[in-house]
């Protein structure tokens, strides 16, 4: 079983001055899955993300990536291993052009990122690949716009293109459809489906409709601990989940399934 899992956590725990935000969490993410992490506000979903990418230090527990212990690594080193995260608020570089946003990610493998004496023209050969990536998320016509001018949904699409530039083995998406209108949600969901081929995705998502459509596996967190796990049918049928998490939304869940 173990070799099947791209990412595992063992008794992952994070306490903030007496408050346990993440409590003894054992996650097992299967390779190739879209795995959703859901739960009510304050359940610790984003904290788990921050622990997995080492933006926070776990109080105790272990994180294994491809069977290798990555718990002591720094955030940049985690990224270099092939785990790339997104953020709850759109993570773009607002005053760079759309093309430059993607190129920053492509540039990393070039090994010239400390070369302050060379012209940035040496990066121009990356433009074709950057345009290709932009095309895959439908942004090629915006390539030379300043990113800050893009509508919200497009910024999130750009974020995905930037993440894809690094060819991550594991993508962590923190609420990719948060704060979006209907059409944008559909567009992003479609995009996630598209990019999930050949890679694993772990996402925090509030929109249960999106979760029901995309997720192969769901973990429900409540007060920092795992409440239940399984596919959408299993999880949504669990009375504990209905009571603890969905509450009045229970009707909506049935519609979605």
């Amino acid at each position: 079983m173990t070799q099947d899992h791209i990412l595992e956590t063992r008794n992952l725990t994070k306490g903030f001055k007496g408050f346990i935000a993440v409590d003894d969490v054992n996650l097992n993410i299967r390779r190739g899955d879209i795995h959703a992490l859901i739960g009510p506000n304050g359940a610790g979903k984003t904290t788990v993300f921050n622990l997995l990418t080492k933006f926070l230090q776990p109080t105790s527990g272990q994180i294994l990536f491809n069977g290798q212990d990555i718990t002591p690594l720094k955030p940049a080193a985690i990224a270099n291993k092939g785990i790339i995260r997104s953020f709850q608020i759109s993570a773009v570089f607002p005053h760079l052009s759309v093309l430059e946003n993607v190129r920053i990610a492509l540039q990393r493998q070039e090994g010239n990122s400390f070369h302050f004496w060379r012209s940035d023209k040496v990066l121009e050969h990356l433009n074709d690949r950057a345009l290709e990536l932009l095309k895959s998320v439908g942004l090629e016509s915006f390539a030379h716009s300043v990113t800050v001018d893009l509508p919200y949904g497009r910024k999130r699409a750009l974020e995905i293109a930037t993440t894809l530039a690094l060819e991550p083995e594991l993508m962590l998406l923190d609420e990719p459809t948060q704060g979006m209108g209907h059409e944008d949600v559909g567009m992003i969901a479609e995009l996630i489906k598209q990019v999930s081929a050949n890679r694993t995705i772990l996402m925090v998502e509030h929109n249960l409709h999106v979760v029901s459509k995309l997720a192969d596996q769901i973990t429900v967190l409540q007060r920092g601990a795992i409440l239940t796990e399984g596919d959408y049918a299993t999880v949504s049928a669990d009375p504990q989940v209905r009571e603890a998490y969905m509450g009045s939304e229970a009707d909506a869940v049935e519609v979605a399934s």
Partner: protein
Amino acid sequence: MINRKLLIALLAIGLLAPLAVYPVFLAKLLCFALFAAAFNLLLGFVGILSFGHAAFLGTGGYVTGWLMLNSGLTPELAIIAGTLAGALLGAVYGKLAVKREGIYFAMVTLALAQLTFFIYLQAPFTGGEDGMQGIPRRALFGLIDLSNNTVMYYLVLAIFCFGFWLINRTIHSPFGQVLKAIRENEPRAISLGYDVEKYKWLAFVISAALAALAGGTKSLVFELASLTDVHWHMSGEVILMTLVGGVGTLFGPLAGAALVVTMQNYLSGGELGNYLHIIMGAVFVICVLSFRSGIVGQLQKFKRNNF
């Protein structure tokens, strides 16, 4: 990017200016412009505020000055040595400071600069309160006598152009691209796999080296290296120059330094001398309240909106 015509025009002004203006004043102006441009590399292009840049300006001045006084080195070697000393100090201070962010970064740099100030105050070789006086200029490469102020000015102009070129190149390099990404969204830059502390550190070292280059050059111009250059006032003044001129613009520090140095020179000699700091404070307040993008930033906006 850089407007070629503007650059040629400025260079022409730089070359012809000694015909109309006292060369030592011009040389002083360019030293401060280089200092401000070095500072702006950090604040404007990495988004980190150093409140201790005087330490590097002063170190450049003292090391260059000491070597001119006590060794047979030619001025260009003494300036290079001063620059390297600044880079080395920057490497150590930068290592400590980049671990912190925002206001804490500023406080760490201020504390380290104060430490430096008191060391220079006590150390016998700096001359303490009297400063290091009578620094000889001698001859560039052992060939070109620098005792003539106009000749000295052209050396300063050449050094300034080199520093300015290096900053421009750094900004428009693969490294500069990463710096801008860090300025724009640091957590995202980390999540893309950039170890941002290393990038900030290198930018800090380049900035410190260029500040020391300005300091070393200045000590030759005035034939003096004094505590004024290491005092925290100086760290504040460079912030003022950069903000008034336009932070994050290439020419802003030049404009800001020109304004501040000119004001200091003309006001301190006249009847308003006693009010100099009040007037500078007022300029700063007006700038921050009404045109936050500074002189050059405001001109760029005007140009974008009207042409």
